């Protein structure tokens, strides 16, 4: 299904933010690969570091207060973290594009959609005015906006929420990037529109072979669209597996808890098993495993060290001492 050389390889990424009281470690040693043509899901709750991870890939962490403390992001033989702003600009939008949760704040309200779409292709691909205009109209058609010629003259506020998200996707794909980073692209949308957008992403991926990093808190969306999944908690990846395996046989107690606490649409249930407590304060993490205070399986050893991801059977990695031990025996 996927080729063996990764398109993007993130190694031991560390990002922190300075606050008045402390240095908050938002991302603490995240590693993963994205292969050509696949969709990788990054799942986690608020503050799990999933969005910061991707801002770091794009060179968009605000510095200060943000700081990249370590790690590498390999893309086509270079480390993206070492590039200067100028070099990064030639990659961002061109080779790696991004779509955001809220298209209204990501689009410029004072420019027509046509101006915004052609700005990209003229800058990155060096297209002429006419050629860029023709290509922009094509892109709008591609994402399912009818009357594209006319709609190019419209401003973002003249589009509905779902249509704006389509415009964002058109913009992101107009330079034919290798990788699309989608940060909660359907969270602000209604379910029927969400289904349309997910269909669109799936369809475009098949036609163009674009890799997608899908950042979401919605496990339903993950199950619908992702090939592989990384579960993040408190700035670390705690579980990594292909989607089938993760949902059928979750190993980390956090992933297990998440799936159990989810009300199910496809079956009725009596009570939900909520995960007790709150996610930890990143500026003041508990020692050892950061999930320990909420974990039903915690043992003494969990207090002494924060477990590393360990490969269980070649395609399922988990960062939990208890789960790792169960396999060792």
């Amino acid at each position, binding site marked *: 299904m996927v080729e063996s050389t990764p398109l993007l390889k993130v190694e031991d990424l560390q990002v922190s933010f300075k606050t008045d009281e402390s240095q908050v470690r938002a991302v603490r040693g995240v590693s993963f690969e994205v292969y050509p043509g696949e969709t990788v899901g990054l799942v986690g709750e608020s503050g799990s570091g999933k969005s910061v991870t991707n801002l770091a890939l794009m060179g968009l962490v605000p510095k200060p207060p943000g700081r990249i403390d370590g790690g590498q992001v390999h893309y086509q033989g270079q480390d993206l973290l070492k590039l200067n702003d100028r070099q990064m600009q030639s990659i961002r939008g061109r080779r790696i594009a991004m779509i955001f949760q809220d298209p209204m704040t990501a689009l410029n309200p004072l420019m027509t959609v046509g101006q915004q779409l052609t700005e990209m292709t003229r800058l990155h691909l060096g297209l002429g005015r006419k050629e860029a205009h023709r290509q922009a109209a094509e892109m709008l058609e591609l994402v399912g906006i009818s009357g594209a010629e006319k709609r190019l003259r419209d401003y973002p506020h003249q589009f509905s929420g779902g249509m704006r998200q389509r415009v964002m996707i058109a913009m992101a794909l107009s330079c034919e990037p290798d990788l699309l980073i989608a940060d909660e692209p359907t969270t602000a949308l209604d*379910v*029927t529109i969400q289904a349309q957008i997910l269909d669109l992403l799936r369809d475009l991926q098949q036609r163009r072979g674009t890799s997608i990093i899908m950042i979401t808190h919605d496990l339903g969306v993950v199950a619908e669209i992702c090939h592989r999944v990384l579960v993040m908690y408190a700035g670390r990846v705690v579980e990594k597996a292909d989607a089938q395996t993760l949902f059928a046989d979750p190993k980390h107690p956090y992933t297990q808890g998440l799936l159990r606490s989810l009300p199910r649409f496809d079956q009725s249930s009596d009570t939900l098993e909520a995960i007790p407590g709150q996610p930890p304060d990143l500026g003041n993490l508990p020692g050892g495993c950061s999930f320990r205070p909420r974990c039903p399986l915690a043992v003494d050893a969990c207090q002494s060290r924060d477990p590393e991801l360990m490969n269980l059977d070649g395609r399922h990695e988990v960062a939990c001492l208890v789960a790792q031990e169960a396999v060792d025996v």
Partner: protein
Amino acid sequence: MSETNPSPIQSPTVAPTSVPGASPAAPLLSVEDLRVQFPFSRGSFLSPQRGVIRAVDGLSFDINKGETLALVGESGCGKSTTARAIINLVHPTSGSVRLEGVDITRLGDREMMPYRRVVQMVFQDPFASLNPRMTVGSIIGEPLAVHGLASGKDRKLEVLRLMDLVGLNPRFLNRYPHEFSGGQRQRIGIARALAVQPKLILCDEPVSALDVSIQAQIINLLMDLQQRLGLSYLFIAHDLSVVRHIATRVGVMYLGRLVELGEAESVYSHPTHPYTEALLSAVPVPDPSKAASRQRIRLEGEVPTPDREHVGCSFADRCPLVVDKCRFDRPVHRQISGSEKVHTVACWERG
């Protein structure tokens, strides 16, 4: 931090709610042919186009004691406006809202007061709906003061009882909302709603701003409180998985109208209106093995703005089953044949 641990609750110091003119035989809440319209004008200053937004367009339903009726539907379907009309935060254009048999739609603010004790509201955003300058104790105690239910030491005791009831540590009495997480703030909002001992709570997207693991805590709390206190809920949500879990009955709304209404189990297992079918089939299921095999009905386009009058069915323009009759005759709710459960649908082609 503290969790919901069912501890023995001493009985409330506040007397149970009773409203003038209530008739015990009537349903707790009865909404009949409710319409809410907002006039608007757009276009240029010189040639304005005037019209009305039909946010709620002829809605009828009852809520009985101890049950949860969920209203579902997409943005702009009128579910939140319905809740606001029920407590008179927006004034209905026509129709009636009866609380225990008394029509409250024409009541002024002062006359509404006793009825506001019967119906309370929990809002979506626990960050915006709590006054940042008030302590938790004064937020929860305020309804008691406003309604003159308890003062001094009694009020403080009652606030502590309420905090315990919703799983907030009473030690946090003098803290401010910003010191709490989203889930705990929602507990504060629930305690405030419970203070006046309402019979009905309108929950407008109470868990959609919360993370998954916290969401389950709040859903469990709401269901637990319902059992212990015999509460009724009008639950407004767009998350159909949450609704399936919590609702006794479900009403599906489209452009200000109910298109389907029935017992939750029946609506989810036998969705009958073409819109309900499409809506339910669009919900992502957290199970990749099922995701591939599910039948999906994709609707074209989006929900239109409710700015024109639909003589017939409001869904006719997007409906795969549409026939001529749908455009000219408004479908009435009919019991679905063959179903033992109470389950009605407004569709000429189905039911």
